């Protein structure tokens, strides 16, 4: 189809073919509109194929100062390449040229019989050489214009031998192609510009979205920080953060300000040396370095600190804060003011020491009482007895009776002393807890009581396997007192019954000692366990009134309780429980 200018063809048929090719070209232009570089190629190729041989598209620069080569086409790519290399890439609009002439006039310029020698002066040596070598014989330049506006030019060069000279039909078809091409190029440029605009708009929008996202993220960070600040701010302990290298404060909370009596504005950026005595500051810094070097929490149970309110004591924990690579960047400190607690502990310790000292004193006192008070009593009793034995017959009237009373009183006082010593001993004695066979303990005590008065008829009921958890010695004192009482208060019965057992009271095991002796009036039950409280007259039943107080003290030391039920002349039952754990010392 490139031989459009064949001599055998009629003008009509050439026009027909031209129109046909034009139609195809326009179609292809439209298709390529959206792709500007391709469109330029399509234009050059179509023009070359329709009119031939080499086609170059020159476009007017934005400032309209120059025509610039956009694309070259020849069906021989080598020729197109040589053209692209040698032909003028740019033609000034200020100098005369065929292209400028055509563009300014808006008319095609056709040189059917091209004289290379004339061209020589108007072009570069490379261009001249190329045209000469190819044997160019015709040139046609058509303007590219849209509504009088210059867009560029299309240059057509014929060099192939045998290709007919350019004629009016060629010019006609080239002009038509050029007008469509100009339109397509303008459209494509508009499209490109619109596209660029749209892209810019999309990009701008995306940027806007991104900046909004960043703003939100920043807000979130601010909110999270504020949240953390609020927490740190309201922690009742001093919280501070130091940066790892210089150990200067970067953060400080309210409790810290109150503790030190300093405002954080004065603290931030400063170090311990700015506020505390040198030795204290050195200690703090030493612990900081230890924490950062070890990358581990360091606990300082007690450290003194000089504050505006005087010397305080702190319990401090120091924690290293590491970055992603594990390098410490901050030091977090949390300090609890333990001044009051520490003072209370001291007081407690002093009180404890005082109690221990008092106990030691009491022990010495008890020893004295035991030894020194009994000695004169022995003399009173012993010499009364000597008097009775040696001078009894010489005594008249109530003399012997009086001496008996002196002896009885001395012996009673000795009992009182012994019972008081036992009472004080059960309070002081170290208590251990172990499994105690209560049945066995009770039987041993009953057997001892029975040896003292073997003539008495007492039925003793003690089941096997009664067991409790407590101090064996102290539980022995409890049972001795309770069984001793039962024995004593049944002494006026011809036949008596004493029972030891266990029952359940409020979910706890309660041991009991029951007798059918003299009993007591429940109205006085509350007085049973008081020291020196007695419900019977001395001439009825002897006793010191200390035994049950001792029982209660021992049971309490075991964390249990003791109580009794009874009725006059119908006996009494004494109950006691033993908590599993010692709750408190009296």
């Amino acid at each position: 189809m490139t031989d459009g200018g064949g001599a055998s063809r009629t003008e009509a048929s050439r026009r027909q073919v031209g129109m046909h090719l034009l139609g195809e070209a326009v179609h292809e232009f439209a298709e390529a509109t959206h792709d500007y570089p391709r469109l330029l190629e399509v234009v050059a190729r179509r023009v070359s194929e329709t009119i031939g041989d080499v086609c170059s598209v020159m476009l007017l620069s934005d400032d309209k100062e120059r025509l610039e080569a956009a694309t070259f086409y020849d069906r021989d790519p080598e020729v197109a390449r040589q053209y692209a290399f040698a032909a003028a890439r740019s033609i000034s609009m200020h100098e005369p040229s065929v292209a400028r002439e055509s563009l300014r006039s808006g008319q095609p310029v056709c040189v059917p019989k091209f004289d290379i020698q004339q061209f020589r002066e108007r072009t570069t040596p490379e261009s001249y050489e190329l045209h000469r070598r190819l044997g160019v014989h015709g040139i046609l330049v058509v303007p590219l214009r849209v509504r009088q506006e210059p867009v560029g030019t299309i240059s057509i060069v014929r060099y192939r031998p045998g290709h007919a000279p350019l004629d009016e039909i060629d010019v006609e078809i080239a002009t038509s192609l050029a007008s469509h091409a100009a339109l397509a190029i303008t459209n494509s440029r508009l499209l490109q510009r619109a596209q660029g605009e749209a892209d810019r708009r999309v990009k701008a929008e995306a940027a806007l979205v991104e900046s909004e996202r960043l703003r939100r993220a920043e807000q979130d960070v601010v909110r999270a920080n504020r949240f953390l600040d609020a927490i740190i701010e309201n922690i009742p302990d001093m919280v501070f953060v130091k940066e790892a290298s210089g150990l200067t404060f970067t953060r400080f909370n309210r409790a810290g300000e109150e503790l030190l009596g300093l405002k954080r504005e004065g603290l931030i950026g400063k170090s311990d040396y700015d506020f505390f005595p040198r030795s204290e500051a050195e200690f703090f810094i030493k612990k900081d370095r230890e924490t950062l070097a070890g990358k581990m929490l360091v606990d300082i149970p007690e450290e003194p600190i000089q504050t505006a309110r005087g010397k305080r004591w702190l319990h401090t924990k120091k924690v290293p804060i590491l970055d992603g690579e594990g390098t410490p960047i901050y030091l977090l400190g949390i300090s609890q003011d333990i001044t009051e607690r520490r003072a209370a502990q001291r007081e407690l310790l002093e009180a404890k020491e005082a109690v221990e000292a008092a106990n030691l004193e009491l022990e010495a006192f008890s020893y004295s009482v035991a030894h020194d008070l009994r000695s004169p009593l022995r003399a009173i009793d012993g010499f009364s007895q000597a008097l009775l034995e040696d001078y009894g017959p010489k005594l008249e009237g109530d003399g012997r009776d009086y001496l008996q009373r002196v002896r009885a009183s001395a012996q009673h006082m000795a009992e009182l002393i012994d019972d008081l010593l036992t009472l004080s001993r059960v309070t002081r004695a170290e208590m251990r807890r172990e499994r105690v066979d209560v049945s066995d303990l009770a039987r041993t005590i009953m057997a001892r009581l029975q040896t003292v008065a073997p003539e008495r008829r007492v039925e003793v009921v003690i089941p096997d396997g009664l067991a409790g958890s407590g101090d064996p010695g102290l539980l022995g004192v409890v049972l001795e007192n309770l069984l001793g009482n039962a024995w004593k208060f049944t002494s006026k019965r011809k036949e008596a019954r004493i029972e030891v057992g266990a029952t359940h009271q409020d979910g706890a095991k309660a041991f009991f000692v029951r007798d059918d002796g003299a009993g007591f009036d429940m109205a006085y039950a509350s007085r049973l366990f008081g020291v020196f409280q007695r419900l019977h007259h001395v001439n009825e039943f002897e006793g010191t009134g200390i035994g049950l107080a001792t029982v209660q003290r021992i049971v309490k030391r075991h964390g249990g309780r003791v109580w009794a039920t009874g009725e006059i002349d119908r006996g009494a039952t004494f109950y006691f429980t033993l908590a599993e754990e010692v709750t408190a010392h009296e």
Partner: protein
Amino acid sequence: MSERTILLVEDNPNDEALTLRALKKSNILNPVVVARDGAEALDYLFSRGAHQGRKAGNPELVLLDLKLPKVDGLEVLRQLRTDERTKLLPVVVLTSSVEEQDVMRGYALGANSYVRKPVDFNQFVDAVKQLGLYWLVLNQRPPNP
């Protein structure tokens, strides 16, 4: 029997008189030497000081109070038990104290018996009678060193 002396270590004159009376009432007729403090007791036992030149030989039995002037009873006991001559001498601690620690230390230092003096004189006489029967009659004492 006249050679079989009893050494009573007692500082209280009342207790001394009562103990002597109790011994007499128990028909224990052995001679009794009374030392009125721990130092005197040691002097007697080791034949020194005021008792220098005492005829050698241990008493048959020592009745030892714990609370004594100068050297207390437990110290007397300790020294007796560390000396070869008196290591095996029967010693009965006769005292007012039933403080657990005294009883424990008394036995730990090698007391042969530990008896608390009862306030009731009749009971005291009973106790002394039993002690005398046991330590002076029934017990086979080690030969004098």
